[in-house]
């Protein structure tokens, strides 16, 4: 966490500016970047991913632009909303992540709900994922919510009702509980090449891969609609983004051509695995369990690595033996890489799925 900042400093720095905050387990950095790029013009943002108050203060000090987009760590959201009085709060999704920090996911949903129920700025608009029951549980108490119907790939943390713990019934893109808690009606929906916001259809074609990025883009655009941005122009700007803080970037390293994919928890990993295509024979997986990653790699058993059958997976990182063991039990071909130089080069772009510090290592050593 580093430095402690004076109470009131963030409030002082944010006063008089239009602030959008973005939080959720996965897609924060990408959605923050999409919101900033889609807004256009000079926008202040904590683009480095420093998503706790010192990072927010540093970003706000660095520029006096009236447009602010802040990525916020899930556990810090209440404090940051209280301090910065945002116009819009984007809630992407909630799932298990770094559980050794004891931020159990239902507790986070509960804290968000308490925060949104007591929020001081009455005109705050929440842009929330209607397909994620934990997000709906948190956001339903807000006075102004824009529900978004966007693709979700991970619902293992929302099998039982956040309200009464009965089993949720899922089907046809809807979910409901016998206690009455159910998926709300969405005002925005993603379609194949379009996003529908109210009665406005916007062409949405992304350079970035994956259904999860369409979800991120849709939620960024819903947030921008609230601050009065022209959505067609914003969607076109967002569509041109090819990488965000190294994510999805094509990099060169030791004669290999790599695409770096950040995947730091089961939901994120499941989403990234969906982008790996059958013709990509070789896949690299790099896993560490340092403090920033969470010290416990048990979550590897929640990742559907079975999807990689038919590929040859090279295991990198401090915890490559944990990965190899997981793949062995999943009946996926694996190679433990003890010597980086011994990995044969592939003619194709090789996807590298890496968790937080492993991703940073690969970004730093490649060009």
């Amino acid at each position, binding site marked *: 966490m580093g430095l402690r900042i004076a109470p009131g400093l963030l409030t002082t720095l944010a006063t008089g500016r239009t602030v959008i905050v973005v939080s959720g387990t996965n897609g924060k950095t990408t959605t923050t970047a999409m919101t900033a790029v889609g807004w256009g013009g000079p926008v202040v943002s904590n683009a480095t991913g420093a998503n706790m108050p010192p990072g927010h203060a540093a970003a706000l000090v660095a520029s006096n632009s009236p447009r602010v987009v802040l990525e916020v760590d899930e556990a810090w959201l209440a404090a940051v909303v209280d301090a910065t009085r945002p116009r819009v709060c984007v809630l992407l999704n909630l799932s*298990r992540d770094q559980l050794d920090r004891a931020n159990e996911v239902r507790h986070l949903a509960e804290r968000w709900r308490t925060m949104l129920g007591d929020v001081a700025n009455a005109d705050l608009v929440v842009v929330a994922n209607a397909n994620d029951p934990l997000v709906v549980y948190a956001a339903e108490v807000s006075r102004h919510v824009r529900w978004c119907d966007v693709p979700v790939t991970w619902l293992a943390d929302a*099998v039982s009702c956040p309200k009464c713990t009965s*089993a949720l019934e899922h089907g046809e893109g809807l979910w409901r509980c016998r206690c009455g808690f159910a998926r709300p009606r969405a005002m925005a929906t993603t379609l194949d090449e379009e996003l529908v916001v109210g009665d406005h259809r916007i062409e949405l074609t992304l350079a970035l891969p994956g259904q999860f990025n369409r979800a991120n883009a849709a939620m960024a655009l819903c947030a921008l609609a609230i601050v009065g941005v022209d959505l067609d122009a914003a969607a076109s700007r967002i569509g041109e983004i090819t990488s965000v803080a190294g994510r999805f970037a094509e990099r060169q390293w030791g004669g290999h051509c790599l695409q770096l994919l950040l995947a730091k928890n089961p939901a994120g990993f499941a989403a990234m695995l969906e982008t790996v295509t059958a013709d990509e024979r070789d896949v690299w997986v790099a896993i560490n369990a340092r403090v920033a990653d969470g010290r*416990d790699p048990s979550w590897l*058993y929640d990742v559907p690595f079975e999807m990689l059958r038919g590929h040859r997976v090279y295991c990198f990182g401090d915890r490559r033996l944990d990965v190899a*063991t997981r793949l062995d*039990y999943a009946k996926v071909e694996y190679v*433990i890489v003890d010597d980086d130089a011994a990995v044969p080069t592939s003619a194709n772009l090789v996807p590298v799925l890496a968790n937080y510090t492993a991703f940073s290592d690969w970004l730093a050593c490649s060009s």
Partner: protein
Amino acid sequence: MLIVKIAVLFPELLGTYGDGGNGLVIAERSRRRGYDVDVTSVALGDDLPDADLYLLGGGEDGPQRLASDLLRRTSFARRVGDGAHVLAVCAGLQILGTTFSVEGDDEYEGLNVVDVVTRRGEHRSVGELCVRVEDETLVGFENHGGVTRLGDGVTALGTVLRGRGNDGALDGFTTSNVWATYAHGPVLALNPWFADRVIAGVLGVELEPLATAADRLYDERRLTLRV
């Protein structure tokens, strides 16, 4: 041909830390030795199936209470009394006992399978957990807020070498057909000897060693953790 019937109980309530890995490991290590395996995942609302081995994982406080309440209404305790095997980790360990406290100091009724009581400790125990189990060493990771006291005559799974376990000295408990540990998540993936001990116990056979990627992982963890 022996068929190993495994039932993973309420993974949506008790499966926070990759605990599903234990079912996978038992199934794979049995299959590779030529045994047939039938793995059933028991969802909320399902009847409790007949099984040779029931698996209980870890979970958050509310789901843990619900799992205990649901299982108390089934024949689970009677089946275990009749000899069905159980592997329980973390919250699963706690609900096998007579009572447990999770949030605050309210006591909740457990399944009363073993005479064990869990109270809320002053601090959460989060970190590597290593346990001496007879002549073997178990490595794993714990993350829980409980302090567990064993009743008279209840045997601990082992003594703590690193981490906290039940109370800083002992970890888990074991009977002729129950294994329970605070080492959560895929503890059987990290400890191939423990997986084989469970399989051998369930099948009532001696097992030949089986080479898997887990062997090197286990050696590496012990070296890193100096146990």
